[in-house]
């Protein structure tokens, strides 16, 4: 069996002392930033990118991946105990989780979230193993036209994730694509939009954009809000174990959440956030069993479903990144950046050219999930204490780490200035109601998209029809068009607004 052989290789790689240590560091850090409101995985991964220069590619990616799925675990703790989502994908968990905490049932809520996430993480890993090889095989048949269409689909899909106006989200993508044009043209060697600044000839660093907008911009936005009043249910965390009744209700929700999350994670634009919203909506739609409290009043299903879904989605969103080199969300965009830093061209060839990296990363996810259960359930008291750290001490630390990260990108002040500039712009976007995540995706995909567009046009001798006459490409563009139509439908439109209201 090829698959077993690959998995064996993966576990062999993941079980080395070094890789275990980095997986642990990743999930520990992920839990930490998941617990702390106001610091998300995008800013954290961006902050850590400079530190991976000294690491091999495999441990570096293992650690960064751990941060993303670890944050899904940590985020639920904050949501349940203080009704503030530690992570955007825990917004819906807060609804029922916090109600359970108020009824003195924080323990079972945390356990349902943790165990559900673990189950979902295991399934998500299996899904990756099963689907990555066939998708990779498919990707090898892609020419430039198909890649271009795939990226269009990916970017349109990302719009579904953005809250608020669709047109504005598309405009943000295009703005991101344009910012990606600040570089030296690969085909003609012409420096574009450089204003004579030597540092811009390699393009704007995506770390500067990510840290500026998601790091500094977030800090400014958080400080602009009145200090929130936090009510922490630390004393009520006893009796972690759910009752038999809880188990009976939670496990079907875990199964549904896992299925939904695994599916939505793979879609372009999908990932943890979309999955948890969809799972909550699904649980809400289902008929209540006799004697069951409704959702929103402390139903364990409202915790188990979305929490399983966000972890499954976080896991399976690695599939398009690993097999096609197309990031479905902002975190994966950073992972693509990390691979590029380590000299690995993301795409279908990664599986064959770097099998240790590919399978080791996947195996490490399962190990990381097991570590997370141990980290989160028995040690919950430790994390709860972290919630007492006030934001006024936290944000200078975030700023400090971001600044060091920016400086060490190329050991020059230039990237720090760029970070400051994008922090300024980031708050402006926040005030204008423009989502920054599509911008980052567009920025990452911009150069790839241009190259594929130009190569496709060269091959077709300038005939734009090539994008619709090739069946695979036409299918991908058709799917993108369908997505636009579906999202524009009035009924979905109103639901989208409801789903994002909590943010």
């Amino acid at each position, binding site marked *: 069996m090829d698959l077993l052989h690959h998995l064996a290789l993966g576990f062999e790689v993941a079980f080395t002392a070094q890789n275990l240590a980095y997986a642990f560091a990743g999930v520990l850090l992920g839990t930490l930033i998941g617990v702390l409101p106001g610091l998300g995985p995008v800013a954290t991964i961006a902050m850590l990118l*400079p*530190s991976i*220069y*000294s690491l091999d590619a495999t441990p570096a990616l293992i650690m960064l991946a751990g941060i993303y799925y670890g944050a899904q675990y940590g985020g639920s703790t904050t949501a349940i105990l203080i009704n503030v989502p530690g992570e955007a994908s825990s917004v819906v968990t807060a609804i029922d989780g916090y109600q359970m905490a108020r009824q003195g049932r924080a323990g079972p809520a945390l356990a349902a979230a943790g165990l559900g996430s673990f189950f979902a993480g295991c399934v998500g890993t299996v899904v990756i193993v099963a689907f990555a090889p066939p998708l990779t095989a498919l990707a090898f048949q892609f020419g430039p036209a198909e890649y271009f269409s795939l990226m269009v689909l990916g970017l349109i899909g990302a719009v579904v994730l953005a809250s608020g*106006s669709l*047109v504005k989200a*598309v*405009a943000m993508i*295009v*703005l991101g694509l*344009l910012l990606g*044009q600040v570089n030296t*043209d690969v085909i*003609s060697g*012409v420096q*574009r*939009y450089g204003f004579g600044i030597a540092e811009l000839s390699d393009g704007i660093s995506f770390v500067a954009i990510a840290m500026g907008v998601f790091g*500094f911009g977030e*800090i*400014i936005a958080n*400080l*602009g809000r009145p*200090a929130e009043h936090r009510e922490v249910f630390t004393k009520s965390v006893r009796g972690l174990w759910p009752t038999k009744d809880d188990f009976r209700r939670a496990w079907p929700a875990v199964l549904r959440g896992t299925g939904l999350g695994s599916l939505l994670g793979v879609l372009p634009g999908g990932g943890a956030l979309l999955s948890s919203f969809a799972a909550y909506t699904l649980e809400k739609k289902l008929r209540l069993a006799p004697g069951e409290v409704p959702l929103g009043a402390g139903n364990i299903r409202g915790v188990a479903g979305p929490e399983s879904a966000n972890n499954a989605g976080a896991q399976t969103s690695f599939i398009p990144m690993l097999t096609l080199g197309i990031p479905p969300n902002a975190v994966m965009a950073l992972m693509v950046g990390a691979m590029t830093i380590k000299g690995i061209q993301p795409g279908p060839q990664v599986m064959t050219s770097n099998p240790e990296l590919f399978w080791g990363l996947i195996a490490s996810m399962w190990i990381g999930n097991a570590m997370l259960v141990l980290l989160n359930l028995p040690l919950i008291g430790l994390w709860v204490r972290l919630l007492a750290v*006030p934001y*006024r*001490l936290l*944000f*200078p*630390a975030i*700023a*400090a780490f*971001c*600044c*060091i990260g*920016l*400086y*060490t990108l190329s*050991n020059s*002040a*230039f*990237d*720090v*200035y760029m*970070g*400051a*500039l994008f*922090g300024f712009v980031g*708050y402006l976007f926040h*005030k*204008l*109601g*423009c989502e920054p995540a599509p911008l980052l995706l567009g920025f990452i995909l911009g150069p790839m*998209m*241009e190259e594929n567009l*130009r190569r496709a*046009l*060269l091959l077709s*001798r*300038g*005939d734009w029809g090539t994008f619709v006459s090739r069946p695979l490409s036409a299918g991908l563009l058709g799917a993108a068009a369908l997505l636009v139509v579906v999202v524009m439908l009035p009924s979905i439109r109103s639901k989208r607004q409801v789903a994002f209201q909590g943010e």
Partner: protein
Amino acid sequence: MKIKSQKDFWSGLLFIGAGTAFAWGATHYRFGSSAQPGPAYFPFGLGLLLALLGGIVLFKALTLEVEGGDRFGRWALRPWLVTVAAVAGFGWLLPRLGLIIAMPMLVAASALAGDEFRWQEALINAAVLTLACWAIFALGLKLALPLWPPGWGG
């Protein structure tokens, strides 16, 4: 003409401005043809697209009624300017004064952005973070950070 949505009105203008600027900038490079696309081909098209999208956003902002006018609300001017200035200042100071001096200044300065500033706390935070950054980045990860002003001993 009345602005129905303040946020969208200014977003629209921003997109139109940025799109036009990129498209205009592209005219300085070779456009090529569809069969031989030059360096200006992609950004010029995108710039026009962005300006067009900005136009749609602007049009909606002027025609569609939005509850409450979609106003900006209070601008967090102090956090905005202080944070950006602190970061840029750190970039300028780090190569000149080194981490051990520039970092406490950054931490203390950025702490000023919040409205719960306390001197004592900010100083302790600055000391702790400087030590942590030195230990993690210089000692642990061995990143080449200037620690002291150039010319000082090490």
